[in-house]
């Protein structure tokens, strides 16, 4: 099956064509936003990190920023550094350049302050935006798509309707040779024994269990009941009682395909098929991990309703709860509550989600895109010093 996408220099395929203004630290984030404000067609990725981080935490933030710039939905990148931060602006630029796309690097200290940086940055970004506007979509195979599976603000309809329907769509994509990423390690707690059965190698199984153990140990080491935050108050109000119940509903998103491998946060899959990525259950950080790993499209199921999107990728919202769909129709793209209310089959609903994925890949804007939702967060695993 084919769709129309943007072919990149390294052969990957984008379904959007953004100029990204990428700050390397919190110190250059505001300036990056101001540059982006001058140039329609560009988008900034402001964040709170990038300095005074060490070890694995530093490496993960670096990998995430490089991954976001390298994502195939991004046609060109302007890296904006302060100049003295821990994450080196030129290193980030050089790594993103490996994709073959145009990358420029400026720093506020070299440009001589905010106003000069805005002027210089906006001129560079303007040229990039104009150049990208000339690029035409070309025919691409759906096996080039990498789908990020996400759920948030879950309620029991997520496990009954929305997640199993998304699982059908994920299986369709994987069946056509594409790639799908399940994430949210917290939401594997109590369901890991089921996924382990589907891993293709002993090593993958071991790593998957290690991810879950590490996450659970993190919660236990704090001396609190995980139920203080997972399930969330909204999950509980909706009727989800324990993390085990939430997890068992959550993993339906991954359909029934075998698990090819497991990935660190923001790590790119090595091949096609279904992968698991080690991310937190918090939606925004989780989506960032999958996008930095190369996903071009996200399907996000919700029971309670949530508006969030992404600066660089379309996020399709699906709910299994018709009341939520009607309540937040401005935000939710697909009502899978039809499974509960009208006896629509999971198979039919999965087909509908897959069809929407194709249309969105061809350029149809999702509701989160139309409304300008650009939530972005990086998962931190260490202290700031």
């Amino acid at each position: 099956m084919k769709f129309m996408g943007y072919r990149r220099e390294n052969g990957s395929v984008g379904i959007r064509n953004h100029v990204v203004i990428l700050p390397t630290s919190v110190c250059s984030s505001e300036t990056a936003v101001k540059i982006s404000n001058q140039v329609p067609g560009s988008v900034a990725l402001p964040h709170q990190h990038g300095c005074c981080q060490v070890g694995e935490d530093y490496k993960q933030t670096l990998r995430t920023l490089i991954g976001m710039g390298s994502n195939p939905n991004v046609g060109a990148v302007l890296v904006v550094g302060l100049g003295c931060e821990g994450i080196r602006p030129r290193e980030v630029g050089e790594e993103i350049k490996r994709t073959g796309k145009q990358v420029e690097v400026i720093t506020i200290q070299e440009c001589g302050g905010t106003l000069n940086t805005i002027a210089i940055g906006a001129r560079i970004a303007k040229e990039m935006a104009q150049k990208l506007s000339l690029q035409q979509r070309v025919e691409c195979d759906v096996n080039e798509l990498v789908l990020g599976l996400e759920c948030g603000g879950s309620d029991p309809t997520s496990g009954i309707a929305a997640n199993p329907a998304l699982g059908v769509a994920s299986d369709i994509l994987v069946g056509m040779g594409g790639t799908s990423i399940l994430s949210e390690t917290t939401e594997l707690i109590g369901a890991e024994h089921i996924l382990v059965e589907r891993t293709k190698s002993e090593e993958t199984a071991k790593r998957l269990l290690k991810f879950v153990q590490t996450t659970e140990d993190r919660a236990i080491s704090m001396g609190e009941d995980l139920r203080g935050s997972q399930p969330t108050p909204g999950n509980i109000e909706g009727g989800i009682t324990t993390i085990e119940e939430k997890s068992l509903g959550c993993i339906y998103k991954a359909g029934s395909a075998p698990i090819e491998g497991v990935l660190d946060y923001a790590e790119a899959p090595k091949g096609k098929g279904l992968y698991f990525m080690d991310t937190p259950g918090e939606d925004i950080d989780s989506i960032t991990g999958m996008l930095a790993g190369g996903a071009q499209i996200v399907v996000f199921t919700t029971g309670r309703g949530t508006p969030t999107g992404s600066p660089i990728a379309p996020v399709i919202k699906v709910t299994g709860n018709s009341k939520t769909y009607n309540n937040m129709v401005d935000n939710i793209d697909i009502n899978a509550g039809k499974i509960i209310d009208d006896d629509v089959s999971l198979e039919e609903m999965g087909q509908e989600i897959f069809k929407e994925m194709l249309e969105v890949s061809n350029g149809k804007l999702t509701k989160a895109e139309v409304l300008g939702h650009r939530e972005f967060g990086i998962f931190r695993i260490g202290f700031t010093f």
Partner: protein
Amino acid sequence: MKSRALVANIKDNVATAIDDIKVGERIFIKSGESKIEVDIIQNIPFGHKFAIEEIVKGNEVVKYGEKIGAATSDIKVGEHAHIHNVESNRGRGDRKRRGEVQA
């Protein structure tokens, strides 16, 4: 008639309401090939669970054919099963703090 509650797996001892169900109602639920009849003894909001079998304190609560926690008190058939009478056995740092053994 439209089903008002779902049993995800025949091993389950709870069902999920897909409508607001009132105390005193008698409802019929499909569980696998068979149909079960439950007298609801507490109001069950949409999305919430109720017991379809007697669950004794300390025993497993089963949904999706898997254990989702344990009963912290006896739960009668038709009774609301939620955080007031079901607890998780995972991520329990509070038990460790109190010196209890992690289940």
